[in-house]
């Protein structure tokens, strides 16, 4: 379990509760960082757990924050829902310093949650979790007919694709015309 606290949108987050220590305590004191999602709830996560995320790991390496600076400046992920970020943090904590198993059965079963999790994990560049998620998404269509697959993954029909393409072209044409008119106006 990760530790979380109900944060606010203000710059200084409240003191988060500490995560339970793992059975084998590290010899060197571990450094912690703070992240929050759309809901501003701040999660305290160890650097070891965050190593799963190539994006956050890169940010940590580049910023070189001290513990105090990290606490004052949680990494904001405004594009990730709070409950999804919680899942990601939990997963990173559970798999901290451990080899990842070939399968993960604890992923959400609801389609929409899984969809959001995939987007978040892809954004945060957590390779192993992305692989699990993609496997789970792939399993959704096993043994299904094309129409059932269309429904599950909301895949547009050829006619819908064509209509969308036409619409996009029309929009692009209008935008181009608008830009030309604006440029002509500026010239005058």
């Amino acid at each position, binding site marked *: 379990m990760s530790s979380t606290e109900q944060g606010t949108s203000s710059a200084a987050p409240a003191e988060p509760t500490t995560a339970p220590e793992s059975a084998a305590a590290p010899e060197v004191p571990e450094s912690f960082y703070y992240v929050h999602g759309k809901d501003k709830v701040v999660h305290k996560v160890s650097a070891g757990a965050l190593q799963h995320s190539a994006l956050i790991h890169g940010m940590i390496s580049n910023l070189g924050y001290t513990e105090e600076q990290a606490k004052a400046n949680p990494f904001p992920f405004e594009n990730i829902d709070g409950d999804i970020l919680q899942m990601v943090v939990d997963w990173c904590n559970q798999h901290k310093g451990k080899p990842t198993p070939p399968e993960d059965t604890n992923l959400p079963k609801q389609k929409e949650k899984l969809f959001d999790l995939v987007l978040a994990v892809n954004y945060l560049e957590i390779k192993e979790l992305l692989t699990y998620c993609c496997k789970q*998404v792939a399993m959704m269509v096993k043994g299904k*007919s094309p129409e059932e697959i269309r429904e599950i993954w909301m895949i547009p029909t050829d006619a819908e694709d064509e209509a969308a393409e036409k619409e996009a072209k029309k929009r692009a044409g209008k935008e181009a015309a608008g830009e030309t008119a604006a440029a002509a106006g500026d010239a005058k």
Partner: protein
Amino acid sequence: MKLHEYPFLVQSEILHNIDYQDLFLLSFVSNKMKNLIKSSQNNRFKNIRSISYNCYGNRRPIVDILLENGQKEDLLAVTKRQLQKFETFRHKPDYFQLNVFGKLIDFTLYKDYIYGYKGHTVATFNPHESASVIESIHNYILNFLGDSVEYYWRTSDHVMNIPKLQNVSACMKMWYILSVTDDLNDFFSAAPDFKSISIKTTRPRELVRPDSKFYHAESIDTFQTHITFPDIFHHFQGKRAFITCMDCEMFHLIDFVNRWKSGEAFQKLELLSVEVYDGIPQEEVLNDIGAKHIVASKTPPTHAVPKM
């Protein structure tokens, strides 16, 4: 969940985790999806060694994929549609129709369908439609997986005619031929040229007429126990022959080799292997075919024959 809203790399990773038979069905969802599969799974498709239409035991084909690492995956089965009255209460299949290369074909999904078939996708056809259904399915697969893959039609019987399909090599392995009733002449006259034929028979007469396409097979492996000198020595037009007999008149064999050496006949022949149960008098044969000696240390050439 909208798959098309995922970035390409995520879509690609998801598709990578889908087995071939589900990818096959997924490709029918839309043209855009089919193109996405083809573009994102291009490298994966390069690991396909061959596609086989396996038609064993007088059944309609089960199509499988052999990968470069030796793994096999069933793609689909093609079979005659059951009459409604034979559909059991336990399993009343739901059919869905797909446009397969311009032909509407009824498909159904089974859990356990045919013995030896580990898939769930089954394409069905009504009587007299089998050839056109199989042709459409093959053309679709050819377009989907590409023509760099090897395609085989493998059979162990001579009941179902082998359709003439683009890029498909026919292979036959027939080890049970009834002595009197089985007539292979019509079968071979209607069949395309064979890549390989492996036949074992106890029939005391020749299998086919001298002008049969049987002799045009690229590779033939025969064991005709009751024939001392099979006709294959006279009529073979292919590249590789593996002949096993119980006994053999040596002058026939010597004559065969001399005609081959002189270029008078068997111009395409690259490899001949003859095994005679009663033995071959090596000195006599080597003298009469003009072979001076055999270098025991020299490794003979090897030839790749399609695995059956």
